[in-house]
């Protein structure tokens, strides 16, 4: 029973992390209907930028954190500007292929710089963040993951539901010509969505790095695990991303704990195919309103 509860807690915490990683992904999808296959690389870039700032530049943690956020924000902006902006209005297949290309490019570049080794951050998080309920122990990283997950969920939820900028973003995703006709600055919306997505990805990358250590392959494969998460949650639902993340997290830890550790990494994809067969738009996704 204790084992079960520990798995439950681990699963939920990892789930929050997946959800957090998926949020940036959903952000881009919501604004521009682009599936970003380079999301794992965005996670990795955030994690490595932070690593470089903390260990090589030896900045204090807080300063490094803020610089990383700024850096990833700018990076997302530049990526949009250089690679995606020229493709506005091109067929979706080309844009998706472009992100596949970007993923390979970024991953190759990161591997060239840092190689495939495992790096670790120095201990950053204070001990008081840890939760202990008798047998169940939640280490500080997991607590911070859950905390960040909830904070960003609220922030994004409010942003998309109530802020004008958020509504403009959704309008662009919905009907681009109409948004243009009303004067929505479509290019700015795209740039902003990439910048925010890269920033959130950077934060998730750092937390993931704190838990498992930083490794290019590991982080980029988590970027692909975003897909089962968002499919479960529905491609365009921010809260769905968190719920999908938790379900996938639980599924993984339970499979790893009770069935077989090697099955752990594929179980999300098996779940993904099963869900797609039953509910093609995910559990919380919008059903496409198609009027001809």
């Amino acid at each position: 029973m204790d084992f079960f509860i520990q798995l439950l807690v681990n699963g939920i915490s990892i789930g929050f992390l997946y959800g957090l990683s998926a949020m940036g992904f959903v952000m881009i999808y919501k604004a521009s209907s682009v599936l970003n296959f380079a999301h794992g690389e965005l996670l990795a870039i955030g994690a490595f930028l932070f690593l470089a700032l903390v260990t090589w530049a030896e900045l204090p943690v807080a300063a490094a954190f803020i610089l990383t956020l700024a850096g990833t924000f700018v990076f997302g902006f530049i990526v949009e500007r250089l690679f995606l902006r020229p493709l506005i209005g091109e067929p979706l297949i080309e844009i998706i292929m472009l992100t596949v290309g970007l993923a390979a490019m970024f991953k190759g570049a990161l591997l060239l710089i840092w190689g495939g080794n495992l790096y670790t951050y120095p201990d950053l998080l204070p001990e008081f963040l840890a939760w202990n309920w008798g047998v169940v122990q939640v280490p500080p990283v997991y607590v911070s993951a859950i905390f960040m997950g909830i904070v960003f969920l609220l922030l994004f939820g409010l942003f998309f539901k109530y802020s004008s900028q958020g509504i403009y973003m959704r309008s662009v995703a919905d009907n681009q010509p109409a948004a243009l006709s009303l004067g929505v600055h479509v290019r700015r919306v795209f740039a902003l969505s990439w910048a925010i997505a890269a920033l959130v990805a950077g934060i998730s990358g750092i937390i993931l790095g704190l838990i498992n250590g930083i490794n290019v392959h590991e982080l980029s494969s988590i970027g692909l695990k975003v897909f089962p998460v968002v499919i479960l949650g529905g491609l365009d639902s921010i809260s769905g991303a968190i719920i999908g993340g938790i379900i996938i997290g639980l599924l993984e830890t339970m499979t790893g704990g009770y069935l077989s550790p090697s099955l752990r990494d594929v179980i999300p994809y098996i779940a993904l195919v099963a869900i797609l067969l039953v509910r093609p738009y995910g559990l919380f996704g919008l059903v496409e309103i198609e009027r001809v």
Partner: protein
Amino acid sequence: MNDKILLQINNIGVVYSDVIQVLKGVSLSVPENRIISLLGSNGAGKSTTLKAISGLLKPENGKVTEGSILYDGTEIHNLPPETITRQGIIQVLEGRQPFKYLTIEENLRVGTATRFGKPYKEDLDLVYAYFPVLVKRRKTLAGYCSGGELQMLVIGRALMAHPKLLLLDEPSLGLAPMVVQEIFRIIRRINEEQETTIVLVEQNANMALQIAHYGYVMENGKIVMEGDAAELRENPDVKEFYLGMGATGIAKSYQDVKAYKRRKRWL
């Protein structure tokens, strides 16, 4: 007409994808606070004219290659839509085009994009006053609303931007006659009460000429006729081709061969 001219189009040509010439020297002027109606058959270039004004040609790979469009005395052709809309020119696209996954109220809020950061509560009330149907639907996703409601929504959405010049592309498309009448009444009211200048593109020439002050007839990318709305309503050619009546006022029969000859004179 001795009003101030708000929009002046001088002899423009529009080319899509560098090869397809759609407009061949279109000139028209839009005086302030008037409703100008642009008539013509399918493919005559009415929608393209509107898009040339609002800057929406660019995403469709079209370009104004000659002539000029002057708005309030400054050139605006080939500017990006973000810039043009911020000067108060808002186009309502053909075929409605709501944001399907946004609620009615969120749809209306997108209309504030050109005035980002300014309060919009009063504008919402204004739109709801013009279109009371929308009030009880405000929390519904636009994708689930009827055609008439959507047409009102998109006009209302454009109103949120405080347009000085409103470009309406076929607001009657696919709507029931009663709804069309109501929408045209409201367009007239908007013109009178908000002092909005309106360019109205229509197939339904009868309705359009009832509310418009002045009209242009387009054919094959050119303006072939213009005149006061009342004058156009009486013109035998317009009667025949757009109002569906024979030159004498009797409903027209298909065998009327003379139609072909007279049509040719225009081209």
